[in-house]
């Protein structure tokens, strides 16, 4: 932890400054190298665990073979279609969830009566496991894309909404007052001060929601079946418990993880690019 050590000699400016500044390529290279080191470390650890013979390699195959299987699976057109289908559901779900959760979060964050009035319903709905909704939604909407979407949206809304709410509460009152003093309208204050200032919170919410969404898409596909999706793939492969299909199940799981990794790194990149001010302006470590 850095607490114990004084300011490190070189990086006095903190992380990459936002736009308009050229990112420091060395710093970025270091970041990538560090990240790679972490991933390689994890992979080695998994490899050692599975090869150590603690568990039957049939049930916990070495990570390298899972990874290899994941790579070869890409050659399979059906699997690619499955991944695409999952991805599409995910993207639509996230877009809808953002479109609902951010405005609602802002309204609830800005207007106390709205928050108080909505709270009972929100708090009652929130803990319902999205997965438990499957049979119900299935009934109303069938096993198609809409069903998956409804459940994904239901799952992804809460983190975004809550982080938005907290972000709105966190806006520096001086900033709001400044805007108001210049005659900026109430809506203008929201649009130009509250939302940008809460944006880092919102993005954190989106990052959390994004992995939840992915998890839920796949879980729903797993439970409710349907023609396509990584979950459907896993469900199909699971039907036989031979080593090969088990490997495929693991490989699909890992693919889901990689998919999430790519998505989240993308969001992280956007976050740094557009909200880099958060970490830097406030002088994060």
């Amino acid at each position: 932890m850095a607490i114990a050590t004084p300011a490190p000699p070189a990086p006095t400016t903190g992380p990459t400054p936002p736009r308009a500044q050229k990112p420091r390529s060395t710093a970025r290279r270091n970041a990538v190298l560090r990240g790679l080191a972490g991933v390689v470390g994890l992979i080695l650890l998994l490899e050692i665990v599975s090869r150590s013979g603690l568990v039957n390699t049939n049930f916990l195959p070495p990570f390298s073979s899972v990874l290899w299987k994941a790579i070869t699976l890409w050659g399979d057109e059906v699997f690619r279609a499955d991944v695409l289908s999952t991805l599409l559901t995910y993207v639509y779900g996230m877009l809808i969830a953002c479109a609902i959760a951010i405005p609602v979060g802002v309204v609830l964050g800005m207007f106390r009566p709205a928050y108080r009035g909505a709270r009972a319903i929100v708090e009652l709905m929130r803990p319902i496991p999205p997965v438990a909704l499957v049979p119900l939604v299935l009934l109303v909407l069938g096993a198609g894309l809409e069903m998956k979407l409804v459940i994904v949206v239901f799952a992804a809304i809460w983190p975004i909404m809550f982080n938005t709410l907290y972000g709105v509460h966190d806006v520096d009152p001086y900033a709001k007052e400044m805007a108001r003093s210049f005659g900026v309208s109430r809506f203008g204050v929201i649009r130009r001060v509250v939302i940008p200032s809460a944006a880092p919170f919102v993005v954190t919410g989106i990052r959390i929601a994004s992995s939840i969404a992915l998890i839920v898409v796949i879980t729903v596909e797993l439970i409710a079946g349907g023609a396509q999706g990584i979950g459907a793939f896993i469900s199909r492969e699971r039907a036989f418990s031979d080593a090969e299909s088990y490997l495929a199940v693991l490989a699909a799981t890992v693919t889901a993880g990689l998919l999430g990794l790519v998505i989240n790194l993308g969001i992280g990149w956007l976050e740094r690019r557009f909200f880099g001010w958060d970490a830097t302006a406030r002088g994060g470590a």
Partner: protein
Amino acid sequence: MTVAPEKNTRKSERAERAARPGRPGRGRGVLVALGYFFIPLAVLVVLWQIATTVAPSPFFPPPVDIAENLVKLLFGGDAVFTEVFYNDFLATVGRMLAGYAIGAAWGIVVGTAMGLSQGSRETVTPIVEFLRSIPATATLPLFIILLGGGDDMRIIFIAYGVSWFVLINTASGVGSIHRTMLDLGKVFKISPARRLFSIVLPAASPKIFAGLRIASTAALLLAIVSEFILASNGIGFQLIQAQGRFQLLNMWSWMLALAILGLLINFVLDAVENRVLSWHKLSRQKI
């Protein structure tokens, strides 16, 4: 165009009052709060009741039936509570709380480390992003293979799943603490431990709490999911049984139980947050 300013004074008054419990007007405040809470709920329930009576469907039982059934499931018998209450309801609550506590603690520890040091953040981020994107539901079998089918497996599974939410929010909260505040601790030679507990964590607490909120929902969800397979008790188990046997009323009742459970957890979190974050609310409510 702007906020009607008289609201401001009222708001700060309210803030003042909230800061000091026991002031006059608090009783009314509680009533208003309860009103805000229950009136929308009551309206919703009544509408639902009417809708289900007008157009009955086996899939949408009337709310009164759901509540009645839940009461029957949990209360009564020889003692106050039924066996189901102890065996399933409490079992799930116990697992959930244990997993939540462990996961939250772990998330705060790792998240703080990540937030404080750019090096560790850069090293760990890809791993974190990768692991948390693997569907928890798909990893459950792995947990079972590695840890067996006992309560400890479920608790660790819940903790694992929950920790990500806390971790990410903590890292981001800690990472955005203003430099002057961190410098303050360094200048006055505050010990690292105190710096952590009296600057870093309080300053990041608004974001940590947002994470804890989300995590509390996730904990419940994961507890349920962990009981979907290889379980012989728990709300998740009951839910899956009800689903398997098309006992829709039971399903709804269990969902209601979950909702109420979530609500309770939320109340506790709210109370804690009101204590711990009152400074934040008040200092932000100024305008």
